[in-house]
């Protein structure tokens, strides 16, 4: 149980970073922490105490870890890579246009 709570805590830390930080790249790091907390939780869901890899054929009575979340986490990590690359690219272009990374100074849009 404690593992799950720690995972949720990590998620909340990431959310805190997104909501409170003023620097574009710190916001991005917050997003990454959030993402990785969910991945960690996902891998934990498939974990079994004393489990082995589910690749041996013909073994009965052995405990296997659930392989599905591991496969899905791999997919999710690749998606995470794509979003992180895009948002970091956006941040660099914003820096070129505005000359600052402070979101308080980046506000041409209002209303």
């Amino acid at each position, binding site marked *: 149980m404690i593992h799950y709570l720690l995972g949720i805590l990590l*998620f909340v830390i990431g959310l805190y970073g997104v909501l409170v930080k003023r620097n574009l790249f710190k916001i991005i790091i917050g997003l990454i922490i959030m993402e990785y907390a969910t991945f960690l939780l996902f891998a934990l869901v498939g974990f079994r105490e004393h489990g082995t890899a589910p690749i041996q054929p013909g073994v009965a009575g052995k405990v296997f870890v659930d392989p599905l979340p591991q496969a899905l986490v791999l997919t999710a990590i690749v998606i995470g890579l794509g979003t992180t690359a*895009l948002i970091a690219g956006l941040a660099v272009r914003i820096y070129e*246009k*505005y000359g600052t990374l402070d979101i308080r100074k980046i506000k041409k849009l209002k209303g």
Partner: protein
Amino acid sequence: MVNSIPLFVVIPLGCAFILPVIGRRWERAGDLFANLVTVTLLGLAIWSVRFIRETTVYHVGGWGAVNGIPIGIYLVRDGLSIFMLVVVNLIAFVATLYSINYMEYFTDKTKYYTLFMLMLAGMNGVILTGDFFNLYVFIEIAAIASYALVAFGTEAEELEAAFKYQVMGSVGSGFILLGIILLYSYTGTLNMADVGRVILDKGASNLVWFVNVLFIVGFGLKAAVVPFHMWLPDAHPSAPAPISAMLSGVLIESIGVYPLTRIMYNVIGFDGVLSNILIVLAIISMMIGGLLALWQWDYKRLLAYSSISQVGYILLGIGLGTPLGLLGALFHLFNHSAFKGLLFLDSGSIVYSVGTRDLREMGELDRRMPITSKTNLVAAMSIAGVPPFNGFWSKLIIIIACIQAGRYGVAGWAILGSILTFAYILKAERYAFYGKAGRDVADVKESPPFMCIALIILAVICVVAGLMLLPNVRETILFPVVNTLTSGTEYIWRVLR
């Protein structure tokens, strides 16, 4: 025909990969291929309407159920999916047609169409999928493409809007994924129907409630329901006009409202508490969206706020949960796609010809741009709820549904919301087309032919969509769609069968 189901994802995805290769040599390839794809998909979606009463399941890769337990990814086509497919592909078709001329403005048309196709593949996938993780993947495909499309102009404002949009969008996706993980830990399966079956067997625990909250926040962020709406008025106006039409017209509905509705009604099971939460969110959205729209002077920004308010109506009907409420909500969803798409395309035509989005600098455009001004008038009448245009009927149905459900207060808010709608759209109409010109408009011309054709198609739909409520027509088109929702968790047995 089971095999036509994956085509909705495969065709645009394939086009998105082919375009960058051949587009390098051949400038016009994007125009041709993108339009071919959207025409094909629209034809396919309309052809699918004949299966609107059936539930067809396609097993991706041929992986069916083993001992009654689904192990592969399922694509499910039922009444609601077909309805959404028609809406999405209709607006996509009009948007690509419009892009032929409009996107001359920008530099790299091929990249634009590539992203457009990716977004379309993502949306069609979200609508068809019957698997939770697959849902997340398709949502991300559609969302990432839309982040890039919002930033497509790469001006300072557009980059800023895209950044804001992506931060909020990623937080939303994070909540959705967290919800999916917790559901998986509770049920041990990712197939939506199977998850529903396990929840029916085990009963809904507190964990399921927590998941509900996560989904409401996550999909609420995607659909820009009011406490989570801050990104929308920045992001939607910043995109090129056809993309604004896609984002406001169908994206917020297909990756926000639709999955939420599907999960609430068909998987987890809808009840009174959820209904109250949705109704409260809907009323806040209607009011705040409408009030903020009144203050705007930027035409596209006004329309973006109005989207928030109209999505409130859709949510209100869905929250009521009565068959009539659902009918109104789904019909309004269709109508909102048509008239909001049209309004955004009209605003694009104005930007194309006049070069401004500020209402104070427009005026006297009714003589200079006859087609734009007439179609805009049709859309404005529709959104304001003037009979016999389509928006009137859907709002009327929603308000009647409120009264029928005994919620007179809610009906009052809905009427107030439609008065607000009337006010802000009248303001836009007066300043843009009939008021005194804020600048010299003598040399303003009507927009090029493809843009006009796109506008006329949507205007015709706005006028005739009310016919969908005629007896016989509604029984064949709208009622089966409502049925897929009102039959609730029967969805599980139709899919697992």
